[in-house]
Every structure is written in structure tokens, then in C-alpha cells.
């Protein structure tokens, strides 16, 4: 077996380019565990909340500020997913091994 070449050496063009070659997110097991698990579970939770039967629960839910509850529910879950994903992404991006 040949030892892996030092970073950047395999790709001189990229390494020499204006943008420094990026360090990938660390291999599985090195990112902060909590956030990684959340990143994995987030789409699962999202799917659960957006799929029948749960999604249909608020259909007869009446109005809130004049807006149907189902509309608020859908866009609310959607916004929640976006915010959580933003937090997760920030945590995973600033993980120490990403700056190596």
C-alpha cells in the first residue's frame, strides 16, 4: 500500500488557485456527536411531521389570526426545519477538524 499523498499535492491546480483547498468535514466520528446526530435525525423528524397522518391533524383546526391552522402548521414546521438546519450547519461548520 502507498501512503496517502500529503494534502493538496494531488491537485496542483486547485491548490494553487485563489481559493485555498478546502478541508472536508472530518470523517464520521470526528464531528461533534450531538450535532451530527441532529443532522441525521432532522430530515427524519421533518418527514414525520410533514407526512400523513400527522400533517392532516391540524386541518380541522380552525383559524389563528385569520389564517387556517394547517397553513400555519406547514409553514411553521418548515421554518423550524430551516432554523434547526441553520444551527446544525453552523455547529458542524465550526467543528475544529474543519479548520485543520
Amino acid at each position, binding site marked *: 500500500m502507498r501512503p496517502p499523498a500529503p494534502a493538496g499535492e*494531488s491537485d496542483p491546480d486547485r491548490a494553487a488557485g485563489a481559493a485555498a483547498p478546502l478541508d472536508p468535514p472530518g470523517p464520521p466520528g470526528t464531528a461533534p456527536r450531538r450535532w451530527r446526530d441532529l443532522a*441525521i435525525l432532522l430530515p427524519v423528524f421533518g418527514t414525520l411531521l410533514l407526512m*400523513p397522518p400527522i400533517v392532516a391533524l391540524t386541518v380541522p383546526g380552525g383559524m389563528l389570526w385569520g389564517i387556517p391552522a394547517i397553513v400555519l402548521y406547514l409553514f411553521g414546521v418548515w421554518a423550524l426545519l430551516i432554523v434547526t438546519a441553520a444551527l446544525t450547519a453552523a455547529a458542524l461548520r465550526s467543528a475544529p477538524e474543519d479548520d485543520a
Partner: protein
Amino acid sequence: MMTEAVEFALIAALAYVALLFALAWIVDRRAAQNRMRWLRSPIVYTLSISVYCTSWTFYGAVGSAVRGGLEFVTIYLGPTLMFVGWWLLLRKLVRIGRVYHITSIADLISSRFGKSEVLGVLVTLIAVAAATPYIALQLKAVTTSYQVIAGIPLDRIDFRAGFWVAVGMAAFTILFGTRTLDANERHHGVVAAIALEALVKLLALVAVGVFVVFGLFEGPGHLFAHAPEGYLHSEDVFGPRWITLIVLSAAAVVCLPRQFQVVVVENENERHLATASWLFPAYLFLMSVFTLPIAIAGMTLLPGHGDPDMFVLTLPLQAEAEALALLAFLGGFSSATSMIIVSSIALSTMVSNHIVAPLAVRLFRHRTRASGDVRGLLLTSRRIAIGTLILFGFLYFRVSGQSDALAAIGLIAFVGVAQFLPSIIGGLYWPQANGRGALWGLGAGFVVWMYTLGLPSLEDGGPLGPETLLYGPFGIGVLKPEALLGLDGLDPLVHATFWSLTANTLLFILGSLSRAPRPLEWLQARQFVDVFRGGGLGAEPAGPRFHRTATSEDLFILAQRILGAAPAHDLFETFARRQGLAQGLPLPTPELIEDLERRLAGSVGGASARAMMAQVAGGEEVSIDELVSIADETARIMRYSQALERKSEELETTARQLREANARLREIDRQKDDFLGQVSHEVRTPMTAIRSFSEILRTSDDLESEQARRFVTIIHDESLRLTRLLDEILDMRVVERGEIPINLEPIEPDAVLDQAVQTCEGLRGAAAVRITVGAQAGPVRVAADPDRLRQVFINLLSNAVRHNDKDPVEIAVESRVVDGVSYEAVVSDNGPGVAPPDRDRVFSLFSATWTRAGEKGAGLGLAISRGIMHRMHGDLTLDDSPPGTGARFRVTLPVTTEDPPP
């Protein structure tokens, strides 16, 4: 008014297109000078992903909301889930795309499954089949919106607008989208234009939404109060179609060629994906948050209003907000054009890399060295492909534009590209998945998709006629395209998705299981599945090296033809420097070949790069065993641990040997101590007597003369004993070192034995000694030193006397010839014998512990005797006899035929 509007819209559209051209041109110029850093930001990356939102969603979402209530959200929720879950699939896709220079979704699937050319062609065909009507749909949207804003009645479609848009977009794409062959090199001008368009469409839609909610109504509550009775209050929408649409849109945001292009191929930085994971869903959120209000407003304010798909335009027009209408028109125009641009780039790359390049490789097979610029050929083919695809889109629009058939095409395309999903997911996570599975799955999915969805979408069932739709082909009911196997009553889209993806997945798995992966498939599988196990992006992908050879000249020519002269020159110079060469071409090392192939793959796709490299360097020759053992992480670890185990076993063996050697040394050391103690004892004993009696003689004046004589005799005897002891010790050293002089001559051993017996008959201990001479060997000769042999016999006889407590001491001596080759003499006694544990030790040099009652001497005699016998090529052994039956010593010597000396 009408002409004014027409002219105004036309001028606005032309100005906008001119702006796009100018922007792209300037950005391309400045990017060449490396001055457009902001283009590499995650925001621009996210905006380019928003090419997902085409005019079909820009205009069509409102129409969908009018017809199906909340159903329109699914088209955005699927991508949201996919991006929010970027850590699962997208991250791996992007990593693979960057590490292996993937150029398109066709390249991904083809590369993963053994760089298969067939798969590349199949995926390209499916993508083109799905995208061409989609382009037609964009042209129709542009045309329709143009007619709306220009006030041209919609009952007759004015194809000219569509035509000129098609021409403009083809020109733009060819101009800015085919500057380089390398798909991973970004088209900065295009990216800038797409980003601008993404902002324009978002701005336009949000502006219209805000205008509707707060301009036409008094806020959301007021607006929703005007919703039609029962609108949004049906649970029916959350049925199978809801699930299907979320799944399809989630698949589409990855599998659509243009999405793969912007998400994977043009990704420049994996961290951008982390930003896009929430920013893109946020973009989608903003794009759709005003959809319902616009739909409700349209239904409320535009009774009998015609096409709900155009509410985004007609609402501002109705309210005489012309500027806003124009902005909305430009937003829709942006959606359509950006889709056309990116789609045609992605598709043309696929066509040139997976259809034209393989043909070119075959065509130029015998002219590898002489043929011209393949790079030019491929770029030209891409340009032609772009023109052709957009032309096909326009023709499709021209043919079917009057009907409503186009409206459904968006979702039909989604189902088509969703066929890639099983192969992608299986390819990324299941190492056993192979090319046959992908081919079967994709083929089956493609056929079922065309049959269940494509066919019914054509007017009157296309070539098969309307009867097929109603009653099945040839009247076979179970084969009805919209009710396969009698699965009736489902929404056609759900039905088609279910059957196509089921057949696809099933055959993908069955095909993969039906044969073992080929070596290259196995290698690619490990590299794709384990992409995160390598050293990361900077490191080269781990994997075995194929044994390929090529000349540097051939490689350089190949690199020049594909990469272009300057990049090829740079690459080879870099390699030459790395190899420590001052000038000239680098050595054609496997690293160079591999690196070059990866670079070629970035331009022409993995399969074609491999084929081109094979012409120059020959095919990869590698056995499956080799691959498995090298590429398989588990195997590698196992081998490592086995090596460790072997090493630790070796260490253990060494340690055991050392322990044994140490024990032997200790034993020898102990024997030496014993021996020295014994020698000391043996020396001190006569010394004691000598000292004691000499003191008596010295200090006593009153001794009788007879007594004095006796004491002097004792002193004399003891000093003789001391001398004998020292002689023995010296003898032993001499025998041990082989320094004892031994003169071999043919003698009759029995004669020597007789002499020894006669000498010993005079011996008397406390008891009488009787020596019996039994059978004799007779006149046989051995090669021996007679004096030394006599010494051995006397040693044995005197031992028999000394180590004996019987009275009388009886010794039996006999000799014989064994098998005519060996002389044997046996001396046995009636003494106590030697205990079995001591039988080896009696011959040991340092073991003088074999002492018995009344023993005199150091007990070195047997060791010396055995040494002498060995020097004469004979032996001295002790027979195993039962305890208490006396000792039996056996002397053996080889018989010789030599005559005695005269």
C-alpha cells in the same frame, strides 16, 4: 396601448437579456483576472441551486394552489427535506463529485458502476427525454407570459416569442457555457447571470405577494377570509399523492441534470453545502409563502379570470400596477431562461461525454497519435448539442403547444429523473451494487415511466392510439398504461411513480445480486462507498494502482488534445518537478497516468477517459482477488492484525527461547558452582588429613617410630590422591577441548579389555572383588588408541568396585560383535546401580554430584571416558536397567578391516 405594451415588454425583455449578456461577459473577463471572489461565496452557490424554481413553479405554483390547495407545497417540501438532511446524501454526493471529478449525473452512475459506457448512454437518454419537454414548457411559459403582458389574446399562441427566446438562450449558453471542456471549472459568467436571475425571480414574487396581501387586501387575515368556502379544509390532499410528490421532488432536486450540475458538479467548496442546507430551503420558503395569497386573491378578484397559472401577472395588471407586472414578467422570464441555460449545459455535457466522446474514441482508434484536436471536437459537439436540445424543446413546444399536455410535463419529468435515485443511493451505500443491476433497474424504470406516464401524456395515446389507453394494448386489460396489473383508481402520477420505482428498485437489487461485481466495478464501489474513509480531499483517493505503462510522449499528446496545450504543459511540468527532473517530460509513473485519467474524466467523463487512456496505456489488468485484498478496508485491517499476531508470536517464541537459554545458563552456572564446591571438597579432604598429620608430627615429640611412619604414609597417600585429582581435572579439560592426543590404530579390543581386567584384579576395597569374564568377541579389530581404551575400561571397572556396597563385589565383563560392524563390551556389577534421573548426569562434565557412600575422587571419570570414546568414533552408554540390579555400562566401537601395523 396595445402596441405600447408590446413594445415595452419586448424592450424590457431585450434589455434584460442584454444585461445578462453584459454581466456574463464582464464577470468572465474579471474572473479571468481573479477578481470575482464573491462568486465563490456560499450565497451564490445557493442562488444557483434555486434554478430548481423554474417558470413552472413561478407561475404554475399558483395554478396548482388554485386547483389543489396546499398540494403545491410538496414541490418545495421535498427539496427542503433533502437539503436539511444534507449530511446523509448530498454531502457524500458532493464529496464524490469533487474527488472523482464527476461531470454529470450520467458520469456519476457510469463511473460508479465500472465506468460503464452503456449506462452513460442510458442515463443521458432518460435525461434528454425528460428535459426536452421541460424546456418546451419553459418556452411556453415565456411565450404565454409575454402574450399576457403584451395584451395579446391567448387563444392563439405566438410562437415567435418562444423562438427568439430559444435562439437567445442558445446563443448565451453556447457563448458563456462552453468556454472550457472541464466540467468542474466554473462558468463564471453563467453563474453570475443565474444568481442575478435567482434574485430577480425571488424579488418579483415577493413583491407581487406583498402587493397582493397588503395592497389589494388588508393583511393575511383579511385575505384568508375571502377564501372560497371549504378551501384548504379537505384532508384529501394529504393522501398518496402528497407522499408521492414529496418523494419525487426530493429526488428531483438531486437527480434533475441541471440540479446535479449546480449542486454537485459546480460545487467549489464542501462548506457551501452546509450553508445551502438551510439557505436554499429558506429561499424556497420565501418563494412559496405568497403562493396561497396570490391564488386566493386571483380567485376572489378575477372572476372568470381564465388561466390561474398567470395570476402572478394578471393580478398586478388588473390593479394597473404595470411596473410590478413587468417585474413579475421578468421574474418568470428569469425562471425560464436560467432553467434553459443550466439544463442545456448539463445535458450537452452528458451528450458530448457519453455519446460523442465514445464514438470519437472508436472512430480515432487507429489514429490516436496523428488525429487532430479532440478537445475542439468535443467543445463543438457540446455547442451543437446545446443548439439541438433547445431546438428540440422549441419544436416540442411548437407541436404540442396548443394543447394542455405541457402543463403536466413538470411532474412527468420528475418521475423520469427519479429513476436515477435507486442507482445513486444503492451505488453510494451498497458496495455489492453493480452495473447489471443499474442497467436493469434504469432500463425497467425508463420503460415503465414512458409507458405509464409518457404515453398517456401524448395526445390520443400517441402512436398506439386512444384505445390502448382505455382498454390496454390489443385489448389486454392488465396492461392498461394507467392501471397496470389492475391497479386501478390511483392518481396516474402515483400509479406511474409506484410501478416505475418498484420495478426499478427490484431489478436493481436482483441484477446486482445475480452476478459478482467485476474488478473495476468493485474498485469503484469501494472508492465511492468509502469516500469518507480516505485522507480527505487533498489526499489522493486511496486505492490500488493499476499496472499500466505508456510513453510520456503519448500521455502528453493525449493531455494536450483533451486539456489543451497550456494546462497539459503545466500539468506535466508540475509532475516533472515533483519527480526532480530539471527539464523534459516526466516519467510515465502510475501516479501520472492516474492523475491524468482523473483530469481527463473531469473533461470527458470517467468512461471516456478510461477508454482514451486504455488506447495509450493499455487496459487495467488486475485480478478480483488483488482488488478485494487491496481495496477492502476490512481485509486491510485483517492483514495488519494478522501481521501483528505473527510478530507477537515470533516475539513470544524468541522470549521462550531466551527463557530456555537462560534456564540452561542458570543450570550450567549451578552445575559449575556444584562442580567447584565438589572440587573444593575433594581437594580439602586430603589436604585436611595432610595438614592434621603433619601438625601431629611437627608438635609431638613422643611418637613411636611405627606410628610416625604410618602417619607419614598417610600424608604420602593423601598427597598422591591430591595429584590424581588434579590430573583428572586437567584430563577433563583436555578431553573437553579435544586436545588429548589419541593415536588410532587397528587393535584387538578384547586384548585391551583383558589387560584392564588383570590390572583391576589387584583392587580391593573393604570387600573381596570377583571379576568374571564372559563371552568374548574374538579376533576382531577396531581403530582405537590402546592406552586410552585401557583407561576407559579401568575407569569402568574401578567405578564398579568403588560404587559398590556388596560383599563380595561381583563384576561381569563380556564382549561381542553386533551385525559385523560394531564391537561392544559390557561391564556390569551387582551394586546399587544408577537411579534413572541420574543416568544422563553421570556423564556430564560438571556434574560430579553422582556421589555415593564412601565415594572417593571427583567422579569425573565417566565424563572423561565418554569424551575419549567419542574421539575414537565410539560411544559409552549406560543401559536402562531396573533399580537394584546393578549398573551396566556399554562400550561400543566401529569394527575396522585394516590390518594392524607390522
